[in-house]
């Protein structure tokens, strides 16, 4: 069956790079889109074609449906892969693609719509016979009505943007005293991130684990799950480390949750790749699980599933969108070994995770067995303030969790990223932490242990580092620097070679 001759990748950063590479493997031409801030970005340079879509502000570029559709027309793309974030869960965008004859590589518009609203998503889960966490979206969205809802649901409560995802703009209120301030802040962040201040109020389950199941559904009635990802290492509800399998699931619980995930997807009329998120209280056969939400897109953490199941999810998405049936039945799929993903963010763990911007003056990826790196940057990349601070995902795999953990540690210790601060030192300390090593984690782990861990991250240079710095200054004309300063001074060796044969 023929696939698409040309796919537009409506995203940036590491996920755009991931999709562009999958297209190349499959013999499909890729079209990158870029804002002015990304004219020299890695994804822009890797694609077969690249189309400028606007100024740096996401609302005028990566979030602009008109700009993306016009880029698709201009480049004669036949399908659009939305990646994650940006327009990936925007039903209007999916509908607009289909109306203009573009295949949206993702679920049907109705499934995005259904799962995009938390109320409808819960209704679907309940209909599928899957338990849910107490919560509601008040029709009256005044501060007072939200506060009343919080009292009905019971403290502690979580305030979430109704249109949201990825933990952006979520706020916790533990009691009355902080409630009104939390509502105001949650609303502000919801408006800033999603252009809609509607809030959802939910009971916060204490010490839960975040465990999600990967789903694939084709256009021929087949739906399978590809087991779980444990994503309990989060900071401010943003995931930092994910792994598969979860240390909390017994085989029996895994089977029940997998069946529940498939039931939710089937009830939603789901097709293509999606993720059913659960909160798990306790562990083993007696653990309770609650449906949280369904993400109607590829997840950031999809590589851990790929590493343990051997299934390439991006290829599968493209094949499904082209009408191909799934290549596997549920019984054909199994988890083999263990995979851990570390998210490398441009933020300073010694300064309250302050986002960092600047140039990657030196960037060298480690190369060793069991290490996969999904990068959105390379040496010389500019990290701008306009977008998500995720730079790279490092995925370590091995026969056992302990082997994967050891490989992740070794790789991070051999992964120099200089020019901006990153959270790599924090990731190293997390991997070494006795509770992480023992698999004794929950979504509050980083909040509880974070300060003690960060206290170990002194950035005072030891004598050895000062000696290296002195040598580097003496060695001032190092090759990396020469190239960067040439670009900084406007003498870009590549621009000046335009038209010449190199």
């Amino acid at each position: 069956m023929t696939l698409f001759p040309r796919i537009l990748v409506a995203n940036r950063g590491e996920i755009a790079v991931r999709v562009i590479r999958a297209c190349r493997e499959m013999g499909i031409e890729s079209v990158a889109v870029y804002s002015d801030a990304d004219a020299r970005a890695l994804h822009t340079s890797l694609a077969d074609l690249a189309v400028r879509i606007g100024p740096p502000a996401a609302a005028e570029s990566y979030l602009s449906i008109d700009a993306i559709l016009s880029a698709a027309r201009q480049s004669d793309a036949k399908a659009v892969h939305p990646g994650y974030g940006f327009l990936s869960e925007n039903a209007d965008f999916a509908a607009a693609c289909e109306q203009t004859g573009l295949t949206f590589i993702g679920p049907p518009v109705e499934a995005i719509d259904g799962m995009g609203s938390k109320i409808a998503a819960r209704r679907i889960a309940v209909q599928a016979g899957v338990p849910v966490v107490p919560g509601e979206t008040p029709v009256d969205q005044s501060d007072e009505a939200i506060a009343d809802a919080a009292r009905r649901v019971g403290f502690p409560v979580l305030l979430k943007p109704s249109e949201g995802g990825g933990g952006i703009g979520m706020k916790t209120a533990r009691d009355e005293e902080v409630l009104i301030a939390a509502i105001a802040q949650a609303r502000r962040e919801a408006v800033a991130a999603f252009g809609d201040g509607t809030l959802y109020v939910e009971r916060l389950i204490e010490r839960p684990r975040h465990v999600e199941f990967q789903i694939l559904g084709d256009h021929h009635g087949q739906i399978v799950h590809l087991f779980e990802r444990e994503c309990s290492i989060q900071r401010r509800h943003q995931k930092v480390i994910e792994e598969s399998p979860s240390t909390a699931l017994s085989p029996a619980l895994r089977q029940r949750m997998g069946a529940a995930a498939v039931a939710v997807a089937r009830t939603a009329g789901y097709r293509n790749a999606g993720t059913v998120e659960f909160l798990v209280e306790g562990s083993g056969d007696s653990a309770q699980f609650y449906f949280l939400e369904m993400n109607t897109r590829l997840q950031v953490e999809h590589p851990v599933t790929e590493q343990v199941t051997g299934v390439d999810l991006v290829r599968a998405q493209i094949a499904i969108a082209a009408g191909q049936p799934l290549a596997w039945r549920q019984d054909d799929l199994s988890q083999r070994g263990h995979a851990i993903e570390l998210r490398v963010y441009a933020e300073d763990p010694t300064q309250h995770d302050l986002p960092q911007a600047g140039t990657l003056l030196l960037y060298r990826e480690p190369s060793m067995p069991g290490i996969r790196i999904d990068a959105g940057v390379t040496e010389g990349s500019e990290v701008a303030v306009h977008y998500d601070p995720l730079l790279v995902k490092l995925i370590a795999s091995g026969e056992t969790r302990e082997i994967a953990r050891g490989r992740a540690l070794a790789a991070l210790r051999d992964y120099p990223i200089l020019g901006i601060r990153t959270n790599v030192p924090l990731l190293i300390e997390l991997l070494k932490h006795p509770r992480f090593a023992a698999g004794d984690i929950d979504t509050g782990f980083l909040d509880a242990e974070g300060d003690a861990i960060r206290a170990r991250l002194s950035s005072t240079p030891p004598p050895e580092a000062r000696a290296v710095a002195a040598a580097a200054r003496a060695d001032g004309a190092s090759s990396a620097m020469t190239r960067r300063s040439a670009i900084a001074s406007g003498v870009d060796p590549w621009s000046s070679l335009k038209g010449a044969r190199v």
Partner: protein
Amino acid sequence: MSSPADDDFEVVPLGNGRYQVTHGATRRIAFAVAARDTWVFLDGRVYLVSDTADGTPRRSSVDEHGTLTAPMPATVLAINVEAGQRVERGDVVMVLEAMKMELPIRSPRNGVVKAVRCQAGELVQPGATLLELDEREGP
């Protein structure tokens, strides 16, 4: 094995930003790049070694004259104080937004706001003055 002196390091450039560090019998690879300050990567840690030679990196945020500066490019989301207002150490005087996250800017000490040097909605560059506190007052 004789234990070498603390500062007895041999550092050999290997090219392309790589350095071999030898300390007694211990050998390690470091990476470094000299910019305004010098960035050093050593065993998973990153250090910013300042040219001022004592190794203390330059810090933005606040100087001894009470000037608060932007730590990075960001949008001013909210300004919670006005000139003449008394603030205490730790008070959130303004909120910046960068990379989809809110960054509360706290007063580094007790004092009185002398001047607010930015406006809500403004995009500020690193080092830009956000706010001035009066001359030293209280701890």
